[in-house]
């Protein structure tokens, strides 16, 4: 995830210090992708080194406040106008697990699929509960809407995972049936010939 661009985009709203940035980030995205404060400050240091933000000095409570520079604004504009790259799909543990389950002997793939489907459904029910209640249910403010859309994204991803699991199950069962039919056919063949 691009913490760098996300923080820059937040600074478009006005100067902020590290902890504030973390809070603003999480108001929009939930605690789905938690940022630790250390990560925020490391990123700010790098952004300052690259001339994308500048220190504005220290506020009354001793926080170091940062503002975005013109170069920083260009970077944000470029981020928003460039699609997220899909060339390198993120490593998907479930796809890898299933790829191994169907090839390693002695693994009950059906059970692997059903356990995962139940677990993903539990997560999906949980996202839906958050959608029904709380600030995502009636998003009045822009950051409530942001959080609601992030929840929708989680919902669609979980749904896609369940659909894929259904698809895997159906294909594997069909493959087993085909294999059984072929075996019956081959076993029956000599008898037909001998009759």
């Amino acid at each position, binding site marked *: 995830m691009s913490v760098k661009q996300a923080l820059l985009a937040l600074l478009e709203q006005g100067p902020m210090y590290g902890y504030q940035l973390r809070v603003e980030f999480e108001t929009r995205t939930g605690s789905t992708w938690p940022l630790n404060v250390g990560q925020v400050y490391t990123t700010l240091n790098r952004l300052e080194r690259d001339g994308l933000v500048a220190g504005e000095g220290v506020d009354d409570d001793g926080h170091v406040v940062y503002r975005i520079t013109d170069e920083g604004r260009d970077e944000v504009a470029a981020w928003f106008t460039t699609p997220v790259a899909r060339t390198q799909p993120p490593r998907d543990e479930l796809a890898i697990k299933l790829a191994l389950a169907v090839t390693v002997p002695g693994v009950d793939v059906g059970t692997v699929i*059903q356990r995962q489907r*139940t677990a993903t*459904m539990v997560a999906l029910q949980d996202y839906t*509960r958050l959608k029904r209640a709380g600030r995502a249910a009636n998003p009045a403010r822009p950051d409530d809407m942001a959080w609601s859309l992030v929840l929708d994204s989680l919902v669609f991803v979980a749904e896609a995972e369940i659909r894929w699991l259904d698809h895997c199950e159906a294909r594997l069962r069909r493959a087993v049936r085909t294999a059984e039919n072929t075996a019956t056919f081959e076993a029956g063949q000599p008898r037909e010939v001998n009759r």
Partner: protein
Amino acid sequence: MNATLHLDDVTRVHGSGPTEVHALRGVSFRAHAGELVAVMGPSGSGKSTLLTLAGGLDTPTAGRVVVDGVDLAALGGAGRARMRRTSIGYVFQDFNLIPALTAAENVALPRELDGQRSRAARKAALAVLEEVGIPELADRFPDEMSGGQQQRVAIARAVVGERRLILADEPTGALDTDTGEEILRLLRARCDAGATGVLVTHEARHAAWADRVVFLRDGVVVDESGADPVDALLEPGMSR
């Protein structure tokens, strides 16, 4: 706790001999007041059979189906038809409204068939149409309404007369994503208000509105999800 709907070791076999099909094999299932239960499974898994048995539209080969404490098999055809007018509401994928009747007349029909006078039935129908959010559509005919509006009318028809058990068979199947979600929201609200809901769907996103999700495979319950919420997913602001 007493379940509104109770399936006890239910088996349903269609046909006999070599063409015999076991649609359900010894399924036990409960749904309580205030609860929405989703039933998922691939086609042929038995989920629609489960719903038709629960609705008294079909009878089991073995086992018991109990609604509101009444064994449906013991009732006979006339008794089951009466249960469908007074205790059980059915919602279909394609709405099944009567085209020649207005929304209010469609909703009033089960009350009138149950012997209520038409004025009282209309009054009850208007009250339920208000509850499902479409009081202004009372005098429209089905072909003057969108799919989502027709499904709302169908839900009103399913709950009119204080019926506590709502059985919904793919109620969002003919609707787009947003409208489908509104229908789920409405079913969910009816259950939160005390009704018992059973939702058959193949869409995980819609099943997720349920308190419990039951998975059927080849006529057998293979798993169930939704006992406890995952606490790792907190609303922002709640974690601090």
